Each structure stands twice: as C-alpha cells, then as structure tokens.
C-alpha cells in the first residue's frame, strides 16, 4: 500500500522527537552534564561555617525563606529574622545573604543555570560587581 511509507516516516519523526534528549545531549551537550556544577564558597562563607539554616534545608527552602523575608520586610516592616537555632539576622538579600555569598556567578548562578531557574530577584536587587 502506498500509505505504508508515509506512516513509517511519521513513526520515525515521532521517535526522533521522543528521543530528543538522547541525541540533543550527544550533539550539543557538555561532557559531564550528569554532575551538578560545584558552587564556590567565599572565604567569609567558609569561615561562618553555617548559613541561616542547615545546608540540606537551604538547598530546597532558600527561595521560600527569601519570599517570606520580602513579605515580612515590605509589608510588616519587620527587620529581624530569628533562625531556628535562635540567632538573629537582618532579613535582606543584599545585606545578609550576599554579604557572605558575594560571588553570585559562582554561587547562585551555577545551580540556577543548571536547573534552568531564572529567579526575578535581580529584576530589582543589584549585586556587587565581581572583580577578576
């Protein structure tokens, strides 16, 4: 039947689309894409040893903490944040977070880019220019 070739052509196109990740990564992908990029800690961050919460929690919850901070500061004017361990911090992305993590490109961006996350923090916040 003359439709057989058309159907098989359609099937091949469909399979190519389904298998997109395999050939895309083979052609365009980086060599070690299955290992996440390392984040670099600044000396100040290393010295502090702990962030405002455990590292595991910070990995998954930092965006919600920031969201919460934004609301409590902007809407309630509350400018102290008490961490789980009782320590007090000023809820501020620029002054608290980026005081230690001043290397946005080597800290924030590495994971965000890897996971294709494009946070709108820096639509408003400026970040310190990084020097070579």
């Amino acid at each position, binding site marked *: 039947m003359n439709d057989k070739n058309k159907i098989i052509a359609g099937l091949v196109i469909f399979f190519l689309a389904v298998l997109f990740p395999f050939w895309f990564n083979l052609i365009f992908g*980086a060599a070690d*894409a299955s290992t996440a990029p390392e984040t670099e800690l600044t000396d100040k961050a290393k010295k502090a040893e702990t962030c405002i919460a455990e590292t595991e929690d910070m990995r*998954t919850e930092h965006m919600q903490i920031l969201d919460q901070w934004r609301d409590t500061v902007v809407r309630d004017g509350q400018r102290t944040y008490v961490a789980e361990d009782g320590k007090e911090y000023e809820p501020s992305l620029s002054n608290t977070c980026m005081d230690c993590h001043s290397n946005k490109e080597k800290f924030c961006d590495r994971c965000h880019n890897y996971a*294709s996350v494009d946070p709108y923090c820096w639509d408003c916040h400026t970040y310190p220019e990084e020097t070579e």
Partner: protein
Amino acid sequence: MNVAYLYSLIAVVVLGLIAYAGVEAAGLDVFFGVIIPYLALIVFLIGFANKILDWTKSAVPFKIPTTGGQQKSLSWIRQNKFDSPYTTGQVVVRMILEILLFRSLFRNSRVGFGKGQHIAYKWVVWLWLFAILFHYSFFVVVLRHLRFFAEPVPFFVNFLEKIDGMLQILLPNLFLSGVLLLGGALLLLLRRVLLPKMAYISRPADYFPLFLIIGIAVTGLMMRYLDKVDVVRVKELTMGLATLQPGIPEGGISGLFYVHLFFVSILVAYIPFSKLMHMGGVFLSPTRNQANNTRAKRHVNPWNYPVKTHTYEEYEDEFRDKMKEAGLPVEKE
C-alpha cells in the same frame, strides 16, 4: 459505589506505595531510578512501533470519511472543504485542525426534549473544553521537563517557562500548566464519575490512566511547592539517564521523586497497550484521513478476490456460429 474506579484508584495508590517503600525502606534507588525508566522507554518504543505497524497492515475495505458539510458537487454549490474534503490537501488541513483543535469534540451535542414533546439538540462544549485544557497543559508540562533532560537547556524551554510562570506568584515560581493539568484531569475524571451515563460505560481502563495522571500531577506539584526535593540532584539523575551514564546522585533524593518517576514510567509503558494509543491512532483513523471523493475515484477493496466473469462479448464469440444457425441476431458478424 462504582467498582470500576475503585479498582483503578487502588491500583494507582498501591503502585505509589510500592515505589515509596521500595526506595525509602528497601533502598531500591537504582531499580526505581534507572532500571524501571529505561525498561519503560524500551517497552514504549517497541510497543508503539508494533501497534502502528500492525495498523499499517490492516486493510481499508471501505471509503468511510465522516463528513460534516456539503461535499464537492456542481460548480455552483459551495463545497465545505474541511468538513467534506475532496483532495489530499484538504484532508491534511482537516487532520491538522482535528489534531490541534479537536473539532470533532467541539461539535458534541446532546439530544433531549425541548419545549413540549419536540426533540431538541443542544450543543455541549464541556468535553472539548476539558480535553483541550488537559492535553495542552500536559504537552507544556512535558516540554518543560526537557530542562531536566537537556544540558544546555534549549531556548524554547526557557521561553516556555517564562510564559508559563508569568504570574510571578509563589516561590518557586508558579507554573500555570501544572495546575491546569491537574484541574483538567480532575474535570475529566469528575465527568466520568458524576454523569450517570458516562459512569455506566466507563471501565477500569478508562479510570486508570486518569488516576495515574492525577497521581503524576499531584506528586509533581508536591515536589515543587510543598515537600520540596533538591532539583539539582534530580537533574543529575535525569541527565545520567539522558546521557546513558545512569547513576544515583550523592545524598539521594526523597521517595516522593521516585513515586513520580515510577508513575511516569508506568504511564509511558502503558501507552501502547491502552486507549492512550489514540495519540498515534488519531492519524490513522479512516473516518478522518480519507477524502470524500468516491464519486470521482473508485475505492477498491483490497480483499476483493478476482471474480470470474463471462461478458456478453465472450458469450457471443463462443456461440456465434450456433446463434447464426438458429437465426438469432448477433452484434459482430
């Protein structure tokens, strides 16, 4: 209580528990994170090709396009080109409209009594609405997941994420498609459960994929907004799968992720053997992909056997002499 959906619901819940317990209690990370997804993909590819090739072999005895408009006729009667296509080009347009816009669902109507005893036909749009909501949000969700399976992430995925998250509510940024997918699947489920006639004709095979997709959507939304998993580790695992260097990332991922992955694997492997095969079947449905041109072109049934005929000309050739002898008129001398 309808056992048809109870069976399906129980099946999905049990499958979820198997994956969760398998990873959290038995430590079968590699089994659920690497072996099952690859197996599912292989089953899908072979099963899908098998089904399509099987359909390719089946005969098309009749020309049976279902039409919804005036067929090609005399030059002063206007033809409805896309509801009663005559050429291959018109069929292609009709197919594209059907596949992208679900026009045949849009035409859905319900029969009932209008005023008094008059039969009335009412246009019912709900199935179309739920279906288009569900299919397109599912499509967007699947495309967005390419961010886990491609490094660098392709530009169209970033573009899609921008549009999908344009409301900028919640953090992590709310993707509309995820919520719409869950909503669409729930509406399709409620339709089957609440409408008595729909419930009557619904089998476990109708409910199972719906519950499975609802399960996928719920676990997906949970991982993003509630009981969050570490997205970077998830990408390490999925990139391992996509680059054929599978492995379980250091530190592990929570059981919820494996439930999600197991549900998706089951769905993918289930497609070729179920009603979900309509994703391939819609292209091959003879009531849609044929031209309504039987008056101009003869459609030959492929399984017609050669019929032995004996035409009048052959009859005359055989008996001409005898016919002449008997004085019967003949056409050829």
